[in-house]
């Protein structure tokens, strides 16, 4: 340890503290930047062992990212403003549908709005990437460990092509007091909507005719113009623990004219209709409820309730709006009141988020230290959930920055004092010789 070392240490202190003040000024400047992550200077000793002198400890400042979550600011209500609660980053690219996976970066800034082409872009000009849903309403197999399957999220797709119905289940109650009377009344008729492969809405009619036998009904299934597919007699349990549920399906009769067809599985209570509406007919399975189960048709005393129909497929329609759920699925709302998933916004996780390098436009770039990204849907495994209509604020705490500022300023002056003191001491030393 010597005077010259002391000078050197003082200089290192000045340098380190000026780095620290740089971080603080960054933080205060970006206190209101959405999705900003504060940095701070971590002071580290560095001893010079070259001179074989012990006890020399210079200081060095490393800038470290603070990845703790920012607080929320309630946005002005734009439905495409997104905030992540929990871990994870949005994957964005500078140009829409960038084919080069190396150009994708991460961000927490979710102030997305559609641009002229309907692509969602944030205030910094980065386009949001997601996985597109197929026409069948599923994502299919997407590569979760690379960005190759990502496309830019676009909300301008103005026509949903629709998809064909393959499954339908119906539920409802038949009034038990109507069956088993000497002259049963008219049938109870309801119809249910299904969708052709061209996305056209059509209807299947269900006509429940009470019979003069108690708890026995004749079901006739026909198309919208009244052409029958077939009939089946449905007997309901009138006692026991399953009273009210279907007991037995019998007398299956097909009245369909080829190429239309009708089949019925008495064990599961499912009718299979072959609908003649194209070169290759559409096949729809209609579940009425298995014998002994209460998930389909029931027969209790009371009113006839209109059928509660669950049907897959969708009609074609025009897009009127979008909705985003907590799992990052963007649903298109169409004018036929159907909701179709358009995109899934995956969140990216890296092994070491602190190792990411902050870059232009609130983004973070991958570094060797950060590790590679792993995509997963929001709300699954360790990733956070997405809230629409909300923005995440920066994680800068002004009070903390100001107190740091005081501390750093004092440290800087102290280091400067060391230098002037050492300078004076050296001056004393040089004045020893006249």
């Amino acid at each position, binding site marked *: 340890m010597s005077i010259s070392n002391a000078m050197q240490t003082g200089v290192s202190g000045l340098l380190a503290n000026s780095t620290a003040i740089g971080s603080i000024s960054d933080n205060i400047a970006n*206190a209101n930047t959405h999705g900003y992550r504060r940095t701070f200077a971590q002071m580290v000793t560095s001893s010079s062992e070259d001179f074989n002198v012990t006890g020399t400890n210079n200081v060095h400042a490393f800038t470290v990212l603070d990845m*703790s*979550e*920012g*607080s*929320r*600011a*309630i946005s002005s209500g734009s439905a495409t403003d997104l905030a992540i*609660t929990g871990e994870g980053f949005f994957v964005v690219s500078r140009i829409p549908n960038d084919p080069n996976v190396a150009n994708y970066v991460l961000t927490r800034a979710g102030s997305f709005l559609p641009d002229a082409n309907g692509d969602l872009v944030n205030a910094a000009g980065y386009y949001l990437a997601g996985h597109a849903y197929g026409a069948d309403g599923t994502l299919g197999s997407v590569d979760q460990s690379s960005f190759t399957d990502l496309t830019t999220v676009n909300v301008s797709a103005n026509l949903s092509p629709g998809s064909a119905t393959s499954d339908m289940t119906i539920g409802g109650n038949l*009034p038990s007091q109507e069956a088993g009377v000497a*002259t*049963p*009344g*008219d*049938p*109870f*008729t*309801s*119809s*249910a*909507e299904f969708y052709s492969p061209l996305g056209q*809405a059509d*209807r299947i009619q269900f006509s429940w005719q009470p019979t003069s036998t108690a708890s026995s009904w004749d079901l006739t299934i026909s198309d919208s113009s*009244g052409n029958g597919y077939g009939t089946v007699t449905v007997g309901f349990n009138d006692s026991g623990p399953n009273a009210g549920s279907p007991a037995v399906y019998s007398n299956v009769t097909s009245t369909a004219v080829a190429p239309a067809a009708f089949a019925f599985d008495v064990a599961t209570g499912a009718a299979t209709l072959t609908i003649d509406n194209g070169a290759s007919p559409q096949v729809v399975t209609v579940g009425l409820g298995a014998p002994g189960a209460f998930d389909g048709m029931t027969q209790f005393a009371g*009113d*006839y*309730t*209109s059928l*509660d*129909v669950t049907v897959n497929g969708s009609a074609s329609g025009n897009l*009127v*709006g979008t*909705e985003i759920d907590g799992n990052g699925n963007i649903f298109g*709302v*169409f*004018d*036929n*009141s159907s*909701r179709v998933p358009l995109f899934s916004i995956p969140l990216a996780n890296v092994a070491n988020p602190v190792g990411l390098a902050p870059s232009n436009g609130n983004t973070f770039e991958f570094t060797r230290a950060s590790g590679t990204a792993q995509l997963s849907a929001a709300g699954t495994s360790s990733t956070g959930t997405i*809230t629409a209509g*909300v923005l995440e*604020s920066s*994680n*800068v*705490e*002004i*009070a*903390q920055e*100001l*107190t740091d*500022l*005081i501390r750093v*300023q004092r440290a800087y002056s102290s280091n400067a004092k060391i230098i002037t003191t050492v300078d004076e001491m050296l001056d004393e030393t040089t004045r020893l010789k006249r």
Partner: protein
Amino acid sequence: MGISSAFVNSSSGLSAAARWSELTANNIANANNQGYAKRGLTTESAASGGVLITGVHREIDSSLIRMYRLELAGMARQETIATELNNYSYQLGNPNDTFTISGQLSGLYSGFGLLSNSPGDASLQNNVLKSAQGLASSLNAASNALAQTLSSVTKGIESDVGTVNGSLEKIASLNNQIAQESNPTARRAILQDERASEIDALAQLMNINVSQDNNGNMNISTGGGTQLIDGMSFFEVQYDSVGGSLSVGNAEITPGKDGVRGFSEGQLAGRFELKGEVLPQMQLQLDDFARALIQGFEAADASLGAGQAGLFTDLGANYDPLQFNGLAGRISVNAAVDPAQGGEIWRIRDGIGATVQGSASDSTQAIGFLTVFETAQNFDPAAGQGDTAELMDYVSGMVAGQKLVQVHAQEKQGQLGGKVAAVLSARQSAQGVNLDEELQRLTQIEQSYAANAQVMQSLIAMIDTLLASV
């Protein structure tokens, strides 16, 4: 996290209070709006601090709404019956009034009584003629009033069916619009208000079952279970004016018909009840009474030849069973006794078929005519007044019975009206705006706003202290 987060939190508190005050102001502004369901704000605490507004909800009680619609349909049916019969009921008058059917009939009876004592008195003969003409014309008037009621009921059915279809179309399209507004927004609440009023209007026309599916659609079927609205599709109600039946697609829903899955209450059901049962029954009673009059005086008149019309005629002709329908509208006094139509007034004493004037003191025929009133006549039991009765009894029974239909409907309307009012007031207090509550809430909002603002002020002071020490 600290002061910065505290800033964000209290600003979220401020904006929630502002939003809340907006809703409260809207509630107060709509306090007198019948179809308005009061709005509430749903908020949740955000995971990382602050308060999050998740939506606007309508405060409704669905069981009260269901009860209200059911009672409303019942009342509307009785109200329709009472209102439509009002005019006819005035026409019938009270059993003791002079210029009503029963008054004229008793006038005729006493006229013949007097005539039998002094058969030669021309003024008494004239009196009988006047009473007979009065009876015929009041029967004609009653029959006309009934026909007018029928035509008004038929027109009412046609216009009601149009209203039902308009309503169904509107509800289906509102279903569609509401499904597109999936989040509980203020706009969605307005659309739901509109849909609820529209369904209330439909419930007044017919009793309906309303169920909500998981897309928020209101699916509607008739009380008997015939589907009217499924999501955004609606099924038009068709009225067959020839057959007098209502149907939806292939399913018949005519009210009052056995075995069909229609409806039994509501304005439309009331009109069908009038058209199908009440009015035809009343017409039958009138016609049957007219027939008894014509036939009674034909039988009591010894001077008549075969096929000759008696004192009362079917537009000048004798009674023809094939021409029974609408007889009450056509009954008239034989022109042979009316001097104004070239007849001779003495035929009242001597019989309608008499060719020469008889002795002025001969009261045989006048006494014969009196027997029409004093012996029981045969009536059609289908008219609901028994198979034999004296004319006076029949008429007073008929008038009282017919008036009773209206009075009964009015009474029931009053009873159900009380129920409707009770349920409505319960519904209003559940979903309507309570000004006291809203004003109380306003104070709460004021406090919450002030508290949040105070937090902010303190935060600013804290930062200022820090800045002063840098």
